[in-house]
């Protein structure tokens, strides 16, 4: 299954609390507008680890992998391959 769906649902409902109203795009920059804060990143890391059965080492928690849902999905797929 496309990992983007689960990631998008988690970010929208858990991190943004459904408060933003607008729908999140897969290519939308999560960091630029302060959409996701530092606690949010940590929760996103633990969710991604649990949902996809991964261990994400600290050196992989970087902007390149978390800037967009697309980027995180690519990382998940590369790790799962």
């Amino acid at each position: 299954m496309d990992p983007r769906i689960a990631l998008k649902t988690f970010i929208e409902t858990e991190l943004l609390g459904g408060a933003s109203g607008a729908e999140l795009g897969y290519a939308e920059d999560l960091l630029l507008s302060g959409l996701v804060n530092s606690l949010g990143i940590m929760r996103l890391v633990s969710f991604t680890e649990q949902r996809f059965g991964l261990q994400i080492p600290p050196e992989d928690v970087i902007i390149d992998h978390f800037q967009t849902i697309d980027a995180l999905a690519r990382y998940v797929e590369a790790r799962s391959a």
Partner: protein
Amino acid sequence: MHYLLHHALDNAALRFPEHDAMRFGSSRLTYAELSQRSNQLAQLLHDQGIGHRDRVGVFLDKCLETPLAIYGIMKAGAAYVPLDPRSPVSRLVSIIRDCGLKGIVSQDNKAGVLRDVAAEQDILEFVVGVSAGLSDRVRSLSWSALDGFTGTSAPVVPVIDQDLAYVMYTSGSTGAPKGIMHTHFSGLSYARMSAATYDVGHADLLSNHSPLHFDMSTFDYLTGPLCGATTIIIPEAFTLFPANLAQLIEAERMTIWYSVPFALIQLLLRGAIEQRDHSALRWVLYGGEPFALNHLRALMERWPHARFSNVYGPAEVNQCTYYHIPPASEWSSDMQSVPLGVVWDNAEGLILDANDRPAAPGELGELVVRTPTMMRGYWARPELNQRAFFRRELFPDYVDTFYRTGDLVRVGENGLLEFFGRMDHQVKVRGYRVELAEIDAVLTSHPAVEEGATYVVTSTEGDRIDAAVSLRHGQRVEAAELLAYVKARVAQYAVPQRLRFVEAFPRTGTGKIDRKALQQKEW
């Protein structure tokens, strides 16, 4: 003679014209460029009617335009007023009105928010840095408008060092933010004293981790230029990713780090710093809140070449004490927390009891401080200014003015000041200063809410604020709706993470809501 903050910048431009003053990503501003560009901005602001004693907002994400804005504004004779780029519109509007801002320096990606601000009645005259139109009453000028000015010199304005240099807004307990007024004298005194305490020189590379509206940024933007040092402006996204931050510290060979403990703990736990070369770091300064000893010890072991210092001082006095922390091997076994240390040079500290008399040696009391780095007062808050200071009259009509920190301290047996908490409901959450009473007031202003109270929950992911609310009889409202209501009115870092409904609040003996009981309750 230099007696204004921008004199210090222009002096650095004479001494080190080609030296980098500021870096941001792959871009940089040398001292000559920063001096000349800030002259251009000052000329533009002058052209827009800004002069002596005006206030101008700075509404920017972290970027190279930030130092340009603050020095351009000061050179125009005005005071800069940092505006949190994450603030909801209503909070921006209340600060703009409270401080009477005529103009704001900003950037294109803020056009949407600024349009909402400009839609208000009788607000602002102009915005610099935005190309798009905002409203028919508020002029907008793009950054390229600077090119129309020579920048060979700044406008001549008769500013003296007692005039305002910047006004920083912070959480106020009544629900309205309050502006801490600093003059060129207090700002430059802080820059000089911090430079001397940490021996800052032009070869230093400073970490600008704090956003501009956070008072720790004055070290990066004022002390740095005083010394001709280079300040590395750290992009917001890097502050969310410790591994990127660790890489940046290495790549830029930063020599002085300054942030809240939270950022350092993140670096320690998630920055993979054992894989990095941080040998250039010579000072690690932290402030804003206490540092958990286990994490501090671990970080000091990772960076044995760096000296660590606990910086303490409310934004009202910039800084007033320091403690250079000895190696962990020299810590006494009964140490509970890092001491605040000693009051720094050119400052006098007193510890007062409940009757404003000096506390007995070793007794707990409120720390009050007299120092040239002290604020002038809160902007347009006469009642607050009455209460904010302790006035000591040693001789007839000879009065010394001390700022009341509201912090409870005592002098330990080792002669060092120790911190014991607050006298009011001000808290620090990941270093940000928040008045819980402000959030309570906002919650209670919702028509469905009978009473609301907020409290701090500590966790390994960093502290957070939670809220408990009781509803008026017969009223119903969702937690998400109440949280959205608060979010639209307070700073982003003050928004509760979780909200719970209660039938009745736990009370103290005097009938007040018992925050401690809320904090300890198993929900």
